[in-house]
């Protein structure tokens, strides 16, 4: 099938296309520079055209999502949509059912989403859910930061062994990259404890979070994985945590980037908003966004996503299980926990972010400060750490806040608690994002950060993942406060979403359902080392896991259809 999207206003920051009137041509699922006369013409005159969105960090599939769905029927009920001839029934607001997840991303014009936390023991579950999610390709990240084998390799300072282990475990779990969550802290949670800062060792292991992040970052570059180290630092959500955040980023400053990767960074810091708090307690908490943003502005080895609070009733879920228990002690709402043997912990709790609550207003303002204080939009990605700071369906609303300082002022003056004004610099920031910035932080930057060459842009050879929105950028003043609701509406229901050259959304409605692909990284060139490492660790595996090694791995039929990223680590 060939398509030509005619006369649209195209934003493609990767190729410095900023609002040019251009045709976009598609053939066999790819962007091309020429189509035959058989090409179907889609008239998108004056409309906003971008590559399909890429989400660098969200929680959409896997065991803790499922605990959320299982134990929050009241949330499932809040998003019920009846079936249609094309779509299945949807449920869920903050934790949508699998098919709803696919439809909703697709309606927003997104085509690729990173599932940010996969415990390898239950990776089959994550992949089962990805099979049930339509219309978006998913890049799952496996959890390594509290894995007992990792802790042992780090303690022995055996980077070669660690690299082989990571390489083997990505194959076993069929994951795309590495994720570290509260390194050593989730292991400490095995005893109901936490670690504080990057130099506090996990009980019994004599290894610190800082050491784990550094070692895994080195290994990541040794292997040349397409994505970098993806870290959720220690001390999430604690007032006064921003030095820990900077310390984590600085711990890998001298790690040399692998020359074969397309990304610029060696470390991606996720949901940075939760890691930028000053003060010493919630009594005197204030923004720590400025020093962190300043560090990022000066250091190109760092990228981040924000984890913007959206003022919703949502569900927090993270492998940072001790933090979830802290939240339980504060709110008393129903707390779930899920610890995974030898690998990680995780926790969940519903949360209500209210604009009238001082802490929530502060968190909201810190998120926006980060967007506005980090100068280079290629270093910052729009996320809500969905569903933690808000559900992903709120991305369009965040766009409206970024594009209008008038709207932000309106909110600061009338809608949110005064902590947002008094304890942050948000009120003084009048920077606004233009459509090019929006395209960068929602498509081009996340694709590059993830190391996805064929996504996030509209150059020849890219995947034909395209979004068209029913707005005329040339005739629309996005800076006007009163237009915020228009942006939210329009960006929430794409005029077209095209996935691999097929129209899956038209006029905000799902018109076609295609299976999502499982993206995974296959490291080659490390076979001998992998074999040896597996032999070495097998006695420990057999004795302390409760499943047999043969039954541990993700079999190929759980990742159908898949996209394999073959990496030659020898190069």
């Amino acid at each position: 099938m060939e398509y030509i999207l005619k006369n649209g206003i195209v934003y493609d920051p990767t190729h410095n296309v900023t609002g040019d009137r251009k045709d976009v041509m598609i053939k066999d699922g790819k962007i091309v520079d020429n189509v035959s006369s058989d090409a179907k013409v889609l008239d998108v005159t004056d409309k906003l055209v971008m590559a399909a969105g890429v989400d660098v960090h969200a929680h959409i599939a896997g065991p803790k999502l499922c605990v959320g769905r299982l134990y929050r029927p009241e949330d499932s009920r809040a998003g019920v949509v009846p079936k249609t001839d094309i779509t299945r029934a949807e449920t869920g607001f903050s934790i949508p059912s699998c098919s709803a997840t696919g439809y909703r991303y697709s309606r927003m014009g997104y085509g690729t989403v990173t599932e940010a936390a996969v415990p390898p023991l239950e990776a089959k579950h994550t992949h089962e859910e990805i099979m049930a999610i339509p219309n978006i390709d998913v890049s799952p990240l496996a959890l390594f930061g509290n894995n007992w084998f990792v802790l042992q390799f780090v303690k022995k300072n055996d980077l070669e062994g660690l690299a082989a282990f990571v390489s083997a475990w990505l194959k076993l779990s069929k994951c795309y990259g590495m994720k570290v969550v509260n390194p050593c802290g989730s292991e400490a949670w095995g005893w109901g404890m936490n670690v504080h800062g990057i130099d506090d060792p996990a009980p019994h292991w004599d290894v610190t979070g800082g050491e784990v992040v550094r070692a895994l970052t080195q290994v990541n570059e040794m292997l040349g994985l397409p994505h970098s180290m993806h870290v959720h630092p220690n001390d999430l959500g604690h007032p006064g945590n921003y030095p820990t955040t900077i310390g984590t980023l600085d711990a890998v400053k001298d790690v040399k980037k692998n020359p074969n990767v397309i990304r610029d960074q060696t470390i991606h810091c996720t949901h940075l908003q939760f890691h930028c708090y000053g003060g010493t307690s919630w009594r005197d908490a204030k923004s720590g966004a400025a020093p962190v943003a300043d560090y990022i502005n000066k250091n190109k080895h760092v990228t981040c996503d924000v984890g913007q609070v959206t003022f919703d009733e949502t569900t927090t879920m993270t492998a940072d299980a001790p933090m979830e228990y802290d939240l339980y002690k504060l709110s008393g709402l129903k707390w779930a926990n899920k610890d995974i043997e030898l690998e990680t912990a995780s926790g969940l709790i519903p949360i209500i972010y209210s604009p009238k609550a001082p802490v929530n207003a502060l968190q909201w303002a810190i998120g926006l400060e980060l967007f506005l204080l980090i100068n280079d939009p290629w270093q910052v990605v729009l996320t809500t750490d969905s569903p933690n700071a808000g559900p992903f369906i709120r991305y369009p609303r965040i766009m409206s806040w970024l594009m209008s300082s008038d709207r932000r002022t309106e909110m600061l003056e009338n809608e949110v608690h005064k902590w947002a004004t008094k304890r942050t610099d948000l009120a003084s920031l009048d920077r606004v994002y233009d459509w090019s910035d929006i395209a960068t932080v929602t498509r081009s930057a996340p694709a590059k950060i993830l190391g996805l060459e064929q996504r996030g842009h509209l150059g020849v050879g890219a995947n034909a993942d395209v979004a068209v929105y029913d707005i005329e950028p040339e005739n629309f003043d996005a800076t006007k406060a009163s237009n915020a609701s228009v942006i939210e509406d329009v960006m929430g229901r794409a005029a077209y979403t095209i996935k691999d050259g097929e129209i899956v959304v038209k006029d905000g409605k799902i018109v076609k359902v295609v299976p999502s692909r499982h993206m995974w990284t296959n490291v080659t060139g490390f076979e001998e080392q992998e074999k040896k490492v597996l032999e070495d660790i097998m006695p420990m595996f057999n004795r302390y896991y409760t499943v047999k090694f043969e039954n541990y791995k993700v079999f190929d039929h759980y990742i159908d259809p898949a996209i394999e990223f073959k990496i030659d680590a020898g190069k």
Partner: protein
Amino acid sequence: MAYEEPITDYDHIVENCTCAFCGSNCDDLDFLVKGNHVVGVRHACRLGASKIMEDEDQRLKVPMMRDENGELQEVDWDTALDAAAELIANSVRPLFYGWSETSIECMKKGLKLTEYVGAVIDNQATICHGPTVQAVQNVGYPLMTLGEVKNRADMVVYTGSNPMNAHPRHLARYSVFPRGWFRQRGRFDRTLVTWDPKFSDTAKMSDIWVPFEENGDYGFCNAIRAVLKGKELKEDVISGIPKQDIIDLTESMKNVEFGALFFGLGLTHTLSKQRNIDIAIQLVQDLNAYTKWVLLPMRGHFNVNGFNIYMAYEMGFPYGVDFCRGYPRYMIGETTTVDLLNRKEPDVFLVIAADPGAHFPGGANMHLANIPVIQIDIHWGPSTELADIVLPGTFIGVETAGTSYRMDSVPIHMKSAIDPPETCREDEWIVNELYERVKKIKEEAK
């Protein structure tokens, strides 16, 4: 127990098979195969081994339908499937029940059929750990995988369950006996506690037995929570337990390094049902302020948890989901199987991998006797006596591979070791076939 000679007469061994009996899903079984039959099973408990080895016992081998005299007679697959599809296509309140002893792959087809016709889909949780799910929904779910208990736990509590009889390898493989990373002496490093009115086989081998009175669970947990909050107990004996024993127990639970509470149907099915679990969960949550505690329901069927997980990720609700209005609804007492049957609502009942004839209350079975029942199963059982159409399936984990979720939600791919009987069909195929045929009937009627 008499000595049994080891089995030596077999052709080959299939290693690391998964047991399709209880929620422990032991995945370390070796099947000894001779002539497409499992003649021996290594590592399994007697429950698991006998289910796997006696698979031919009372096996349903051919499709059957009742004749005009009410006797089940063999028919060909087309006849049986068409008749079943006709019943489903024309029903107003179909109910598809069971699923806990089949694979996730089969459930996928089942949900597709359910959504298509607007049926209610439900599993055995509705009569076993449903109250647990409700309690989890009310107050939370602090759980873990079983290896956490093996590697860390120094106190293990079983309440309202008797794993020595019902989950025979639970203590041996996961919780009490094995040597763990931080518990190198295994059993000697742990305190085993049983709270149960009965002096069960598990209680007999426990270090501490707390025999609270029947229906005393809620009051007992409430008292421990009060002690944790520093309250002095008023009564000398609470739920049949002397005051001082409750105080001592609370103190020892506070002072362990890692405690695990396992509970079974003894908690879910006494007077205050889900509220027993509700308060037990809150007790575990309270204890986490002092030290580490986790809990886990002792799920029965090997994939009963799998159905709840599958339905949760596909449709946001764990069991008892009603699609009659074109969107899912979940309302305990309204969309749950036994309530619907007691109200005499369903007009067609499909049962797969379950035995309501053996497990449902009389009132529910009375209604089943009055409506068409389609059974998909591998063994003849009380439900076969209620069935009008019988469709013989295959044995997951022995004859057919498939996915299951262990009681602690660890997903396991259960491999197959032998071929199914030629006249049987895989569950997944049967349900999909029903879907295709129902769809054809419905579309022709349009």
